[in-house]
């Protein structure tokens, strides 16, 4: 595709030699020498110019020197004080004669008698020390030992579990993921109390060493998808992962598509819901947005709340969303097409009043629509970026004042303002932001098509989008399934939201392995009156 070609052209010029990136600090891979002062010196040179590294030196007993190394801010200081330092010092005092601890005793003693920390690890290279310290563990080096001990003392500032900001619900759990990986995994664990729930850990990013957890339900998920996810994440070679968006772009099936092929969510209940359908969740440290694969277009149209509200309501709301997706994509272009090509289709009275309102407008309809749509997008973007109180003021000024003034000045026709506003509202009905922004983006080429070829152009544009969407796949699952390829039984969760007692089977594409969700179709009945 054209886009790919351009991207390759742009990236070619700054393609670095692989070695220059991968060059490692040779000092780090060396093993500990065992010479205490030398090792400390070495470590300090690795961590030079790092003010947050703390070296706490002390003596065990009288002569033997030890040092605790940790990163301030990533550790629980109280724990170091009470569970590591204090026992060590006290042990030293209680030692009968001024003798040094020998290495083999040391291991046993430290682990079994002295240190009261849950997790203790050992290591022999500087590399390990660096890794452990940087991830919030405390390293202990003792004179005379060529081994380092690591105590899990991780604790850092983190946000508490809050209501997800991007996916609000009226009914449903108010918990959202946080930036902390373990909090997030616990939120999922709490919902699925089964050993079948697997949480595979991976580390990605040469510098960031970001922890990633692939989670799925063993026995339900299609093994092939898990393998594929594992492989694709394993292929990632990047310096740092700051957000799940990085991962998303690395593991997509078609990198040249506006449509998101990976779903992101802040809601643990949504992840669990998808796990139960045989999908795979990817949780990434330092971001509250987890990823779900594979995903279809229709998955993105479903909010988690659909499954909590009554099914009649949910079905109706789904249809409303489908209507509004079409509106968001096509309304401005259809308006342009009708107004500049097919005026005969407007009712006479409507045409006359539209014509009357357009008398003073200096722009052609297509330009007018473009202007309005672009300024709407600008307003929306400004509303997101600006601090909340200011954002509100901007949207009020933008929407009310400017809109009103533009209409009164005759720069923009009132019907156009209505069309743009409806389109804007329609685009916000989609539960998935990445989806809605894709649709909003596609609106512009559609408008151009409508402005040049009328309804025929709109049709051609729609066909291109449809063809593109049917060609897309997300981890092998056709993007438009279950509509195309048609799977009648799965329409139960697309055309309608089947009541829970009717959703006997998991979706065909991902839940083939273990299709039965419940034993049998059971429908609640009132107690029979005869007995």
């Amino acid at each position: 595709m054209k886009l790919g070609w351009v991207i390759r052209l742009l990236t070619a010029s700054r393609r670095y030699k692989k070695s220059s990136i991968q060059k490692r600090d040779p000092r780090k891979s060396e093993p500990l020498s065992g010479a205490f002062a030398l090792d400390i010196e070495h470590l300090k040179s690795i961590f030079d110019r790092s003010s947050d590294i703390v070296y706490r030196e002390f003596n065990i007993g009288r002569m033997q020197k030890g040092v605790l190394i940790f990163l301030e801010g990533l550790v629980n200081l109280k724990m170091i004080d009470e569970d590591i330092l204090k026992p060590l010092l006290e042990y030293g005092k209680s030692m009968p004669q001024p003798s040094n601890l020998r290495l083999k005793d040391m291991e046993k003693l430290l682990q079994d008698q002295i240190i009261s920390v849950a997790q203790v690890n050992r290591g022999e290279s500087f590399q390990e020390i660096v890794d452990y310290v940087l991830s919030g563990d405390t390293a202990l080096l003792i004179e005379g030992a060529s081994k380092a001990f690591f105590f899990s003392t991780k604790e850092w500032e983190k946000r508490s579990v809050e209501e997800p900001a991007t996916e609000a619900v009226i009914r449903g759990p108010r918990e959202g993921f946080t930036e902390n990986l373990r909090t997030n995994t616990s939120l999922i664990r709490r919902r699925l109390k089964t050993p079948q729930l697997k949480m595979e850990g991976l580390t990605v990013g040469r510098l960031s060493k970001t922890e990633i957890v692939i989670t799925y339900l063993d026995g339900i998920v299609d093994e092939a998808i898990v393998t594929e996810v594992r492989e694709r994440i394993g292929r990632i070679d990047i310096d740092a992962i700051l957000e799940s968006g990085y991962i998303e772009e690395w593991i997509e099936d078609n990198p040249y598509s506006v449509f998101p092929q990976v779903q992101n969510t802040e809601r643990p209940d949504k992840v669990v819901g998808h796990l139960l359908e045989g999908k795979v969740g990817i949780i990434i440290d330092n971001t509250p947005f987890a990823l779900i694969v594979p995903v279809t277009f229709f998955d993105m149209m479903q909010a988690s709340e659909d499954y909590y509200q009554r099914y009649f309501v949910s079905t109706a709301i789904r249809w409303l969303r489908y209507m509004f997706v079409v509106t968001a994509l096509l309304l401005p272009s259809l308006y342009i097409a009708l107004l500049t090509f097919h005026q005969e289709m407007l009712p006479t009275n409507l045409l006359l009043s539209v014509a009357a309102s357009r008398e003073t407008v200096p722009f052609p309809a297509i330009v007018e629509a473009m202007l309005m749509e672009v300024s709407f997008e600008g307003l929306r973007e400004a509303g997101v970026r600006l601090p909340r109180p200011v954002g509100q003021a901007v949207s009020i000024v933008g929407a009310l004042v400017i809109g009103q003034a533009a209409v009164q000045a005759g720069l923009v026709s009132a019907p156009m303002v209505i069309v743009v506003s409806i389109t804007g509202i329609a685009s916000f009905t989609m539960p998935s932001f990445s989806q809605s922004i894709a649709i909003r983006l596609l609106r512009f080429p559609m408008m151009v098509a409508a402005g040049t070829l009328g309804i025929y152009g709109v049709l051609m544009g729609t066909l291109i989008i449809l063809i593109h969407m049917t060609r897309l796949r997300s981890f092998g699952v056709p993007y438009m399934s279950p509509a195309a390829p048609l799977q009648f039984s799965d329409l139960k969760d697309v055309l309608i939201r089947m009541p829970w007692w009717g959703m006997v089977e998991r979706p065909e594409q991902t839940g083939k392995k273990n299709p039965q969700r419940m034993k049998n179709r059971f429908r609640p009945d009132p107690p029979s009156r005869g007995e």
Partner: protein
Amino acid sequence: MRKKGIVLLIIVMTQILTGCWSRVEVNDLSIVTATALDKIEGGKIRLTLQIAVPRMLGQVGSGGGGGGGRGSGGEKKSTVTVSENGETVLDAFRRLQEKLPRKLFFSHSRIIIIGEQLARDGVSPVLDFFSRYREARLHSYILFTKGEASDILNIPPKWEKISSEEIREEEKSHIGVSIYLVDFLDMLLTDGVEPIAALVEPKSTEVKKKSDSESGQSPPESEKSVVIAGAAVFRKDKLIGWMNGKEARGALWLRNELKQAVITVTIPEEMGNGKVSAKLLKGESKFKPILKNNKLIMKVEIRAQDDLYENSSKLDLNKPDAIKYVQKKLEEDIEKRIQIVLDKTQKQFKSDVFGFGTAVYRTYPKAWKKKFKDRWDQEFPELEVKIAAHVRVVRTGLTNKSITLEDKEFIK
């Protein structure tokens, strides 16, 4: 390869962006709301168009809501009437376009009015344009007028913003003959039926006061409005005569197109002396041609359901017998009405606007082809038609006995 396709697409799109072939902005359109056609001396066609002026039509917030067309001065008319002569409709159309700054746009013209002269000379030549031209609607009403058609378009509207809207609303109510262009063409093309269409005339909305008629003053033009006054009767595509309102309604009965009607019958002295008016609920006519011994008889059956809404006689409508009597009276009245129009068409116009011929074809296709098809013109005036009306009174309104009369006054 896929890249090439996309590149091609982009090239095509940029090509498209630079040109804008069929694109017309709304404010570059002259929206035609009605069309009138006349024949002038020398056989040329005069095309008159009524064009809406959006500026003058209810723009939100412009105050006044576009009451401009009320005809009193003309300083603020909601429509403009323009006309031009030409050899053909398209020719006149082009000449007219030359005079106008905006592109003429036909799609919203849903009225075609044709003047008498053109109609008498044959309408086929002009109607072809309306079936061929993309913007024209086959479902526009076709109307005829005595005199010049362009005059009709100049009559200012009273209720709507545009006078053609008024005419259309009137046609839609189906009180008079209402024929679409497509129906007209169908009648023209189908064997065994001749076209009929509505006749419009400017008429005063108020009944003339005595003083006016004595002084010989006719009401000023602005007081008049366009009224469907009857029907135009054709043989092939040539106008051959007019029906007045009453006759036209008789024709509607026969053509099974009557939607609204009020029938008033006089109750004679011995039965209560007065008038009874009934409103039609449902009327239906059926042609039953009977071919016997080479002689064709057309049986016309009419079934109607009525509501009685007015009774000034001393008839006690609470009695089933009285209802039966009224029904019989109504039947007689309908038959009489129909007979009048039948006589006129058979004897005077000699044009089968009711489609008797089609009915014969549908029942006796072979006989029609052999015997009647080619000489239906001669057969039709001689055709024996038997009318049988069946009326059923369904309800008598909100009262049974007349509320204005005392019990003893009723005729038992």
